[in-house]
């Protein structure tokens, strides 16, 4: 049996069971969490190219399988990323167990994981945007989560994946045409151009960041944290898959008239603009949901910069930043979800004023998570940001200053949020945190602080990431 079949079917079966149990929150959340955790651990433990025994059946993870006329095969990178997404989903479920993120999140999360599995394993990778469009269409239901009113977050999430579809399909057609005229390089140039524009839309640096910010603002926080993590990881993995499969894509220009305008440069400078914009916008927000959304965007900008750097060591840095971002987003999203729930679904400063005095652990989880997203010292996000600063500083100190300015902007936003959270309490009848909520917040705080105090914990996942990306060229 192929590993792809397990990734596509097991979460769907679990989703069905979870849906049937939806009236009982504890069993349904426990089943969803166990299913995601099991998938994550199995995907991280199983070797990619050897047979393993699972429930009495022989499973070969990388065996290709043909479904609905399309070939699916799990490469080591896809296996590693799916394992990471499953573990992140389990963490989101753990938080959602105590703070409702919408009734549909438990079954839909598993179904979405299965769809992400299809996106990451479909061959050739040109077809992945079609499946990604299906993913965001299904995700619209969990982003909106039954909430009445603005639908901007869910609507905008549909934009970019749908827009990239014809670009990738046309690029694939030109690639097929290229061998018909081996003398001419025009077909491959056109394919490179279309694929680069498509990848730029999928990776969405500034000024294409709007959908990600709207999703972060409007979706339930833990749903947003998982979806933003999954979408970023999927886009990066798709870029990597295309670079491995079509090495001529490296250095492809977006416009023939501007040969210097290459994807790598656009990601590098777009990433810097993203960091700066996220910092500036985050610093002036009077709403902690928006601050959180911009903090997540800041780290994503750092990820794009490290992709754009294009060195062989870039992938380790990319994944160090992505993993730290995922951890920080989950922890801060948990804090944000509790604060939002206690403030009556409003997260502007007027409504959250004083909540920190009654919900100190939750507030600490939120604030420390955002600090980690900003890459501040003594948090999980620091190692990645420090490595990025060193890489940028060795090229051009001004580039490092731009990223630092973004981080400082976020710090200003954080101080203003802290001031609001510790201000005079409006609702004197507000109850204190329950013990289980304190335990979950403490777990999150440990996840943020321990990697900073003991950086060697990064070694194992990073070694696995580096091993998975071993055969991958430096960058676009």
């Amino acid at each position, binding site marked *: 049996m192929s590993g792809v079949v397990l990734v596509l079917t097991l979460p769907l079966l679990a989703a069905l069971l979870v849906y049937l149990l939806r009236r009982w929150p504890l069993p349904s959340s426990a089943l969803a969490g166990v299913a995601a955790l099991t998938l994550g651990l199995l995907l991280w433990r199983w070797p990619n190219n050897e047979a393993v025994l699972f429930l009495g059946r022989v499973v070969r993870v990388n065996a290709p399988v043909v479904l*609905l006329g399309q070939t699916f095969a799990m490469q080591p990178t896809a296996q590693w990323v799916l394992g990471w997404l499953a573990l992140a989903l389990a963490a989101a479920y753990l938080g959602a167990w105590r703070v409702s993120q919408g009734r549909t999140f438990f079954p839909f999360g598993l179904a979405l994981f299965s769809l992400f599995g299809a996106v990451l394993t479909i061959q050739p990778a040109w077809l992945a945007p079609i499946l990604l469009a299906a993913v*965001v269409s299904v995700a619209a239901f969990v982003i909106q989560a039954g909430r009445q009113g603005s*639908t901007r977050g869910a*609507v905008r999430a549909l934009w970019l994946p749908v827009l990239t579809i014809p670009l990738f399909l046309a690029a694939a057609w030109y690639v097929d045409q290229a061998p018909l005229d081996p003398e001419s390089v025009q077909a491959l140039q056109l394919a490179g151009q279309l694929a680069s524009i498509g990848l730029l839309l999928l990776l969405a640096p500034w000024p294409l960041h709007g959908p990600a910010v709207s999703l972060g603002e409007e979706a339930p926080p833990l749903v947003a944290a998982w979806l933003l993590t999954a979408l970023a990881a999927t886009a990066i993995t798709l870029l990597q898959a295309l670079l491995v499969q079509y090495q001529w894509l490296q250095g492809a220009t977006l416009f023939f008239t501007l040969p210097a305008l290459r994807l790598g440069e656009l990601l590098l400078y777009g990433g810097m603009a993203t960091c700066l914009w996220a910092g500036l916008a985050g610093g002036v927000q009077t709403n902690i949901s928006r601050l959180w959304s911009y903090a997540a965007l800041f780290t994503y900008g750092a990820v794009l910069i490290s992709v754009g750097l294009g060195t062989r060591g870039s992938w380790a840095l990319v994944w160090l930043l992505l993993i730290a971002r995922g951890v920080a987003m989950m922890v801060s999203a948990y804090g944000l979800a509790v604060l939002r729930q206690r403030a009556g679904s409003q997260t502007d400063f007027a409504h959250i004023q004083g909540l920190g005095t009654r919900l100190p652990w939750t507030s600490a989880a939120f604030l420390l998570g955002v600090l980690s997203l900003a890459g501040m010292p003594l948090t999980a996000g620091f190692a990645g940001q420090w490595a990025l600063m060193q890489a940028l500083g060795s090229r051009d100190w001004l580039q490092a200053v731009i990223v630092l300015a973004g981080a400082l902007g976020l710090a200003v936003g954080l101080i203003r949020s802290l001031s609001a959270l510790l201000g005079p309490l409006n609702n004197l009848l507000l109850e204190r945190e329950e013990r289980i909520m304190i335990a979950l917040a403490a777990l999150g705080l440990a996840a943020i602080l321990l990697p900073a105090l003991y950086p060697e914990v990064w070694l194992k996942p990073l070694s696995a990431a580096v091993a998975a990306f071993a055969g991958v060229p430096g960058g676009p």
Partner: protein
Amino acid sequence: MQPLPPFPSLDTLFQQADRLAGTPLLLAISLGVIVLTAARDWRLVLAMLMVVYSGLAVLTASLLPPQWALLRVVVGGLAAVIWYISAQQAGWGGSFLPFQHSQGVEARPLASTTLFRILIALAVAVLILTLRPRLPLPALPTDVRFVVIWLGAFGLLGLALGDEALQAGVALLLWLAATQLLLAALQQDAWLIWLLSTVELLVALATGYLMIARGPLWSNKREGSD
């Protein structure tokens, strides 16, 4: 009483419809797309969606077997049904664009005024018609190339004109319809056509759900911090 004549086969139907091919068909699709982008009445939008998808079916019949061309009408029809039910569920009246309230004063965003939308749509139409001889995608037949560019441009314009679920859904379907036409002209892959049609229906379903979540748009009391 005379017995009913047999219903014409799909081939016959499309052969008859083929008489409309050329300028009348392009005109119907082009005007339909302009109305789709500019109109504020959701019932008019759904009617025009069917006109555009029927036109696309006739155009697709020149590239693919008629059964596959019919799929365009089926997808467009299902999307229209989904949105009709959603509009009914949401309790919409005649118009679908939002009226924003600010301190008791009703203020409409510029992009929601019919005049502005028509002007912008006409400007885009004039631009495409002017650039017609220099349009990209030379590998496509002339008519198909024009319709692909037209649908794609108005799809992007629709997305630029607003965040409302129905507007965005229509714009995304226009973009996907352009993709389907491109695919029909370049590589006739049955699975890809099915896959894209499924995505079209999923987009319609998602935006239909979001229309219900948006609720009646003349009441913005529940609106978040927009």
